[in-house]
């Protein structure tokens, strides 16, 4: 659990972070969003004390971060940044094994752990272990960055725009993997991004920052329904808000099981989002879709009325 109480940071005359309070529960993924320069990275870095806060308190599991030795503290917290920060003169496996080696794990245990993580992140050991960072694609390098952060199995993960430098397709892939990973590992994660779609897709809790302050926080759905002010509303997509919300809801949640009469001509997997279902309807100019499971077997029906959230006729 991470708690910030009235935390403030000034650089000279400029207040980068202004009295923010925040609580990230254990196992929760909290996304910090906001325009660039609003203090997201500064907030993140104060948690692992790369930057010391000027006012307020930061607690990890109830203890102030200042009560820990900073080096010990950081070894307990995974840290991933946009530029990956991989050591260019070390191989992939050596990069991943960094923190375990700092913690003086025995050699075999480090090696086993590195291989385990490479498998977890879809990096075949035989192919990648001895490569150098410059031989990797952007997506591969960021996978290594995430593996390195997870190496010593920290409870807390701090991620600063980890997928910000990747092309849209790679980014979407890594977001999916990230979601799957989090479903398995239940880390407490603070995730900085300026990409609202990414935040909506990944976050349990969304924190919107503006000029060093938190302007609103809550679940993605809550924020979409009740943005606190026009700034949050525009950040959340303005007129596109309906589609963004629809992107968060699965077809399976709205479908009518065991469709009646005739099968509709177009199909949609039950795991697809409502916005995708709407897109299919628009494209084919139909108002009914057959919902199918992974094996393409029809299991229900989604009508436009149900998609819109109305009760079945």
């Amino acid at each position, binding site marked *: 659990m991470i708690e910030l109480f009235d935390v403030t940071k000034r650089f000279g005359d400029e207040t980068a972070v202004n009295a923010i309070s925040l609580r990230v529960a254990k196992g929760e993924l909290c996304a910090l969003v906001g325009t660039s320069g609003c203090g997201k990275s500064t907030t993140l870095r104060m948690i692992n004390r790369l930057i010391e806060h000027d006012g307020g308190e930061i607690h990890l599991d109830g203890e102030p971060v200042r009560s820990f030795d900073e*080096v010990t503290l950081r070894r307990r917290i995974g840290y991933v940044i946009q530029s990956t920060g991989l050591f260019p003169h070390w191989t992939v496996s050596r990069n991943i094994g960094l923190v375990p080696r700092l913690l003086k794990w025995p050699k075999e245990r480090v090696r086993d752990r590195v291989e385990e993580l490479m498998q977890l992140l879809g990096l075949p050991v035989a192919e990648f272990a001895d490569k150098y960072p410059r031989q990797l694609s952007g997506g591969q390098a960021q996978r290594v960055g995430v593996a390195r952060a997870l190496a010593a199995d920290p409870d807390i993960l701090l991620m600063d725009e980890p997928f910000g430098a990747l092309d849209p397709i790679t980014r979407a892939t890594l977001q999916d993997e990230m979601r799957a990973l989090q479903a398995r590992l239940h880390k407490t994660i603070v995730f900085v991004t300026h990409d609202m779609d990414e935040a909506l897709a990944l976050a349990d809790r969304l924190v919107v920052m503006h000029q060093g302050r938190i302007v609103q926080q809550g679940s993605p759905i809550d924020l979409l329904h009740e943005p606190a002010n026009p700034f949050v509303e525009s950040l959340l997509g303005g007129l596109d808000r309906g589609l963004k919300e629809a992107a968060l809801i699965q077809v399976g949640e709205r479908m009518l099981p065991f469709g009646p009469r005739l099968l509709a001509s177009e199909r949609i997997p039950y795991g697809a989002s409502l916005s995708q279902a709407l897109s299919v309807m628009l494209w084919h100019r139909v108002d009914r879709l057959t919902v199918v499971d992974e094996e393409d077997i029809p299991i229900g029906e989604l009508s436009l009325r149900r998609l819109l959230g109305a009760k079945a006729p």
Partner: protein
Amino acid sequence: MGVNRQSPNWVLLSLMLVSVVAWLFLDALNVAPNRIVPGTPYTSLEVMGGWPALLLGLPLLGVAVLAWQPSRKGLQCSLAVVVAVLMLLPLWLAAATVGFVDADAPQARVGIGSALWLLLFLLLLAVIELRTRLGVSRAKGWLLFMPMLASWWLALTLWLEPLALVREYRVRSDQFASAVYTHLMLVGAAVGVSLLLAAVLVLVMRRQPAVRRIGFAALNFLQTIPSLALFGLLLAPLAWLGSRIDWLGNMGVSGIGWAPAFLALLGYSLLPMVRNIFVALEEVDAGVIESARGMGMSRRQVFVQVRLPLALPVVLEGVRITTIQAIGLTAVAALIGAGGLGTFIFQGLGQAAMDMVLLGALPIIALALVADALIGALSERLRLGGAQ
């Protein structure tokens, strides 16, 4: 490849045309009966009936033609031709020397004329140009010079005794060896000590911004003093120290000799060294340092395991520049009696004996090239970070 018309390689083309013109029309040799009498110049066409000269010029014209529409094959061919001509030059010189110098003129000396020097220089440039075009690796590139060195060595040991340069060397072979030794010692000491001093200085500068400002200002100022003036400035205080403090005097510290030379070299070496080490350490990718700290490496660990190894290639670059600069400056230090290869240059200038000047200058150029190659190769290795 293939179908497309390539634009001419103007560099190669002009190198070749100038080479041929120089080779055919400038003086190739200069023959004098002894050291005092000025010699008679000969062009290459006047030597051995001219045929060998034309035969040597023809392949170069061929390369010029190939350069008009360069293909990879053509460039490879050109490289082979240029290397072969470089190899033949000393043999041509040997043949000419043997033909020219009578057995009954034991004092006769053969000087190398401007045509030969120019040809040598232009062809070496051509090798470098071709090497770059063909993407030959550094190590393999050096192998290209081997046939030439071998043939020079052969010619010098077997036939080129009458060469003025060789004659100058023969009378001073002991002096030459000790000059090379002194030169290397001065350069080595200046570079070594400045590296250590610079490292310490940079470590302090990184901590203290005030020291940084003053340090760079002082070093920049030092760099602007002309070398002879600096030697002059050091003369009085060192003479005084040497005469007052016995053990310094016994070490040979005085206003002239190795002590002021060493100090001046040290002064000049310090700025490039400090600047490179400083920049090298500062320039390491901020993201890498941030993640190193974020992962929980201590300050020491970040410095020793990350910052230093990543900075090392740039540091070596500084060592390379400093070494080459010091090799040149040490030549000037001969003026204040520091010894070294510069001695021959200044004595030669005094006696208007160009060949003696060359006896000093050529090894200095060779030393600089070798230092450049060795340190450059080392830095390239480190830059690869052990990959490949």
